[in-house]
């Protein structure tokens, strides 16, 4: 993980003081609510249905155990004892008081955590692969570059008042766990023929009311030019992105309206002016950032320790291991995903007690490091295989060993109408009902990998367009109606789902999903043909026929 130095710490503390002043001016009436709104939004504070909501950044999904404890502390002291992990490597607290916010921020600043630009029309938290630095086959650790971008985008003097929010994601693996194709800028770390590090740059991806898959704007941008190239994209967007209509203000609309060729020419022209400026990064700078990432001192361990062999006799352990444990780049170690999707509970929530206990487990078993993924699960990135059985027992006691990672009950959902002032429909109760319908592990396992994504409004925070099964709640004549799509995906083969038929009522959603799954089980060619592949092979029609035949 990245260790803040005095320079980073100073900036975070200065930001806390500034925010304290802003809150004070609001409380004293010196700032109107409208003026304050823009200021609080620069710092992750939304006014929701019942209270202020506070969103804290977990840059590129990497957390140290003391940072997780600080999040637990905020949940306990200033909120209602829990937090909610989001689809963009943030955590949200839903019940915080305005007057407490500066203190909560100050407490987080002590461990190098902040809420800068977790909302507002600026460059948001930079996200990355939650397995960065440990995934086998990864080209190099993308977090070095993520950190470089994090710093560069923090309180940027030119791009803090963009037409709309701006999200950057970065991956260095062939299998994309960071959903880079649905980001404003997606970066895929690659090497050129000389072995130098650079990036394939994608632009204009995004979900929301007008979803687009990102397009490649440049096949190779050398690492030394990364900041100037991003700056060129942002400068074109800042000047020409639409500001007359909030729904057309994202860069994806600009790219779409200009066309990728014209847009890339504009960027190229701007880039030629600035690429040889002080934005150019030399190797020493990269090495300096790299030197402040702390990597574990791995032991030389056997591939198959006795502890693991013995535990294999326990079917419950095996069920968990099969879907929660992934290969690590170092022999004898594993990456362990921790499901925050227990049956019947809201996806992505963790209590303060769970966070504290998990921090302890990270210290004991994962070199004090925790990761947060966009699927709203956590991970311990460096677990020795011999420790897996003990870790599993400990997680199980905490309610954190639900063996459903990547299965149908591993649902991504936004907070929906239970919390959010933008929502038109409930999301969490739909997710809860679905997890109950598919609670049987054998059934879920038989179905195999299947991602359900639920959004409670067109803004698509639950990424419904890219769910294998996507559920979008809308409001129609005062009623919640849900539109269901199939065939979406967020990985390297990102695609938008297709509507399967007319919208259905709240009470019918789980039935329809069950019917879709039943259709899949009947239609698949072999037990190992995944839902996605069956949909790809057959299209929407056969599903539509089966699901809507009796409706």
């Amino acid at each position, binding site marked *: 993980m990245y260790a803040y*130095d005095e*320079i*980073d710490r*100073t*900036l975070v503390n*200065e930001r806390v*003081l*500034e925010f304290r002043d*802003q809150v004070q001016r609001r409380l004293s009436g*010196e700032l109107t609510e409208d*003026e304050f709104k*823009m*200021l609080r939004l620069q710092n992750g504070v939304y006014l929701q249905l019942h209270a202020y909501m506070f969103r804290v950044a977990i840059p590129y999904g990497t957390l140290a155990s003391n940072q997780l404890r600080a999040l637990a502390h905020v949940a306990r002291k200033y909120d209602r004892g829990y937090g909610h992990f989001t689809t963009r490597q943030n955590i949200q607290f839903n019940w915080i008081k305005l007057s407490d916010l500066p203190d909560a921020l100050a407490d987080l600043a002590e461990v190098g955590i902040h809420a800068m630009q977790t909302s507002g*029309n600026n460059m948001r938290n930079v996200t990355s692969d939650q397995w960065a630095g440990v995934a086998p086959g990864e080209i190099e650790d993308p977090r070095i570059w993520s950190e470089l971008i994090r*710093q*560069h985008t*923090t*309180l*940027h*003097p*030119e*791009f*803090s*008042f*963009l037409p709309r929010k701006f999200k950057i994601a970065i991956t260095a693996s062939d299998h994309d766990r960071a959903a880079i194709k649905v980001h404003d800028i997606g970066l895929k770390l690659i090497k050129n023929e000389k072995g130098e590090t650079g990036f394939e740059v994608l632009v204009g991806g995004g979900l929301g009311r007008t979803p687009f898959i990102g397009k490649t704007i440049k096949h190779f941008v050398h690492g030394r030019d990364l900041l100037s190239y991003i700056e060129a994209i942002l*400068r074109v967007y*800042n*000047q020409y992105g639409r*500001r007359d209509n909030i729904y057309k203000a994202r860069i994806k609309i600009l790219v779409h309206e200009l066309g990728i060729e014209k847009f890339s020419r504009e960027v190229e022209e701007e880039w030629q*002016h600035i690429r040889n*400026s*002080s*934005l150019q*990064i030399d190797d*020493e*700078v990269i090495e*300096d950032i790299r030197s402040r990432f702390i990597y574990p001192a791995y032991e030389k361990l056997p591939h198959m320790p006795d502890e693991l062999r013995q535990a294999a006799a326990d079917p419950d352990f095996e069920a968990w291991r099969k879907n929660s444990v992934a290969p690590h780049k170092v022999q004898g170690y594993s990456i362990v995903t921790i499901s925050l999707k227990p049956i019947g509970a809201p996806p992505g929530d963790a209590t303060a007690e769970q966070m504290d206990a998990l921090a302890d487990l990270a210290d004991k078993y994962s070199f004090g490091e925790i990761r947060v993924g966009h699927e709203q699960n956590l991970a311990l990135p460096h677990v020795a295989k011999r420790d897996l059985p003990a870790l599993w027992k400990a997680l199980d006691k905490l309610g954190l060993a639900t063996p459903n990672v990547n299965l149908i009950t591993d649902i991504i959902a936004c907070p929906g109408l239970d919390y959010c002032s933008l929502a038109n429909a409930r999301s969490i109760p739909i997710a809860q009902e679905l997890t109950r319908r598919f609670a049987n592990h054998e059934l879920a396992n038989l179905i195999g990998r299947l991602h359900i994504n639920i959004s409670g409004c067109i803004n698509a925070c639950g990424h419904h367009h890219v769910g294998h099964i996507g559920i979008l709640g809308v409001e129609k004549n005062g009623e919640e109606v849900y539109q269901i799509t199939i065939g979406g995906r967020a990985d390297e083969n990102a695609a938008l789902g297709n509507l399967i038929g007319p919208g259905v009522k709240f009470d019918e959603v789980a039935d329809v999903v069950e019917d879709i799954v039943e259709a899949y089980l009947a239609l698949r060619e072999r037990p190992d043909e995944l839902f996605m592949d069956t949909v790809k092979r057959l299209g929407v029609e056969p599903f539509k026929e089966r699901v809507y035949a009796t409706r």
Partner: protein
Amino acid sequence: MPLVNGGKIADDGFVKLAVDTPLPEGGDILVPAERFIGEADALLKRAGKVGVIWPNNRDISELVPYLGKLAVVALVFPTFRDGRAYSQARLLRERYTYRGELRATGQVLRDQFVFMLRAGFDSFEVKKQADAEAFMQTAKRYSVFYQPTGDGRITALHRRMQLRHSEGVGT
């Protein structure tokens, strides 16, 4: 609306002209963009300094032929949240090397001062008296900057390099 110039609340010596206001004989004037472009030669010939108020949706490079003769370029923030003029400011300072007064107008609050200073603004028509009075204190709020801009402040990356090298000398 108080003007902050050179870090202090100052009198505004410029009179703002509308598109159709008769041209005063002498004195310093601030002219809307279209009038300036239309009458540039006449305006620049008269006694008194000339500045231009440039909207945030018009290409700033149109001003390049006149930059050496302009005393003020006033850029506009129609609302706090509309940040186009930050790009215009940086282009003026960093690409077109404009050295005259660069003024921020519109909805200017203390919370933008640091961004504006970094983008190259050096004068500010501030909406609220209290914000104008807090200018110096607010401008010093930050001591760490991650991005290089034309203001010449040392960035965090470069400061780290300096620290590294100075440590290297001693050891």
